[in-house]
């Protein structure tokens, strides 16, 4: 089970320059790929292209190839894509259907579209509510949720489709530390139990530090750095790409600069603090 981008270049309809330029990526079952980069770097476009929605739904021109298990996403219909590759957008309110009276029904929207049996729909909703710790929101009106709550509900709505690949565009941008931790745990469970492959765009590098197997840095539509999470997030060049290193790296840098410990000793200290 592999999602592969090969020399993927994308230009929005009417745009003068490429939003994505020659990107090569591979996402395999049971792995998490973190994506970081400054604003306007092309991260959201990467999400749309990787999910197949661009150019199938979002108008534009794609060159290179994007395949899911060897099949071009441009040959797949939107509902087929939805079942293989779920995507969570930055703005959770725009992701909600706007027609559901309760959060329960909002999460049911996707599975119902697929025509699943009612008992399956209910099972999936219960599992998603439980996984994200939002069972208490089930009877609430989706239009009256806070930003963070809406983000969790939008994520639950995508998880309910049980896709093999999950593309998340800043899934914790409106969440408090507890919500962020819940999302991290839920994603880790998905990877461990269902072998879901996850591509997550995230400014909170601390989350990626704990969650991702590999990280890519995107800048001006290109991948400028790629490697195992620890290697990339430890890279002292990271801030030059508009990315703030995780606290572990910042504390270590500060202590080392102050001559207060070796990097190894600082890592040990940070691990102790985290536990």
């Amino acid at each position, binding site marked *: 089970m592999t999602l592969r981008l090969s020399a993927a270049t994308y230009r929005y309809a009417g745009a003068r320059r490429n939003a994505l330029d020659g990107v090569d990526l591979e996402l395999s079952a049971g792995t998490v790929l973190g994506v970081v980069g400054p604003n306007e770097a092309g991260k959201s476009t990467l999400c749309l292209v990787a999910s197949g929605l661009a150019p199938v739904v979002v108008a534009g021109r794609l060159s290179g190839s994007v395949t899911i298990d060897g099949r071009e996403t441009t040959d797949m219909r939107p509902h087929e894509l939805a079942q293989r590759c779920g995507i969570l957008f930055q703005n959770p309110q725009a*992701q909600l259907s*706007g027609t559901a009276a309760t959060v329960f029904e909002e999460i049911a929207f996707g599975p119902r579209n697929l025509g699943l049996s009612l008992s399956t729909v209910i099972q999936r909703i219960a599992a998603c509510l439980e996984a994200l710790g939002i069972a208490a929101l089930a009877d609430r009106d989706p239009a009256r949720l806070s930003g963070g709550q809406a983000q969790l509900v939008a994520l639950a709505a995508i998880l309910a489709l049980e896709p093999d690949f999950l593309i998340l565009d800043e899934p914790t941008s409106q969440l408090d530390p507890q919500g962020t931790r819940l999302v991290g745990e839920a994603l880790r469970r998905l990877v461990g139990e269902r072998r879901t492959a996850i591509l997550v765009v995230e400014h909170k590098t601390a989350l990626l530090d704990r969650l991702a197997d590999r990280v890519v840095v995107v800048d001006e539509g290109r991948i400028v750095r790629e490697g195992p999470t620890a290697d990339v997030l430890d890279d002292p060049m990271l801030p030059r790409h508009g990315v703030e290193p995780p606290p572990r790296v910042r504390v270590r840098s500060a202590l080392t600069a102050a001559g207060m410990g070796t990097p190894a000793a600082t890592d040990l200290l940070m691990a102790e603090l985290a536990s």
Partner: protein
Amino acid sequence: MRPERGLDPSVANREGAAAGLPAYVLRVPTGTYRSLNPFTKSVIALSSAIVAFGVRGWTGPLIVLALTAAIAAIAGVTRSLRRFVLATIPIVVSILLVNAFLYPGATDVLFTVGPFAATGTGVTVALQATLRVVAFALSVAVFSLTTATDDFLADLEHRGTGRRLTFVVGSAIGMIPAMASRATEIVEAQRARGLDTEGSIRRRIRGIVPLAGPMVFGALSEVEERTVALEARGFSAPARRTVMRILPDSGLQRALRWFVGLGSIVAVAASIAGRFPLP
């Protein structure tokens, strides 16, 4: 309130409850009129509109007004109808003025205002037209006050209406409060930056421009985002959408729908053909 015979909600929703749907999703309507199936209520509202506009003279609109008032009393929504009556004032005033003073060919002058003469024929036509508009508005109002939007949509889906049409109807209804809320947010944001939108009419008109731009462009942008998001949730899947709620219906209600629907068409046809002369 005791459910009417044949409308036992537990029967209609047995499948959903058995599957484990919680009560806040089943939301079985209660009350004599409210518990009628949304389709039955929509047929009553539509038939009322047909009779109000289709049956000549005073009889059509007066019958509809009486019926609507009775239904509103049964459903307990009479007080809420006032704002709907108030909402018809602009159109009612224009109907009265245009017909009373400008009715073509009328010569029975009642009084004059400057160069304009109000005629008896014009006033009669204007009053009848006013009654029709008010009767129509109230029948629609009673429907909307006694039917939750999601009940209506659930019933449409259950009856096999396409998901796109159902979604469009739901979105259109849901858009009104959403737009109002967005307008409030924009106005407050503009005020926070020093724009004066209160006071004289001139100031209020000047405040429309900075409101309209963000409203329109924001709505267009959201439509695009939402379209993409819907596709990401399998909206265009070919399978028949899973029905989650089945609202109570009965043979009695089916008979009532046929009777009311056909009855309104027969009444209009007979009125047009002059088969039963009405005042």
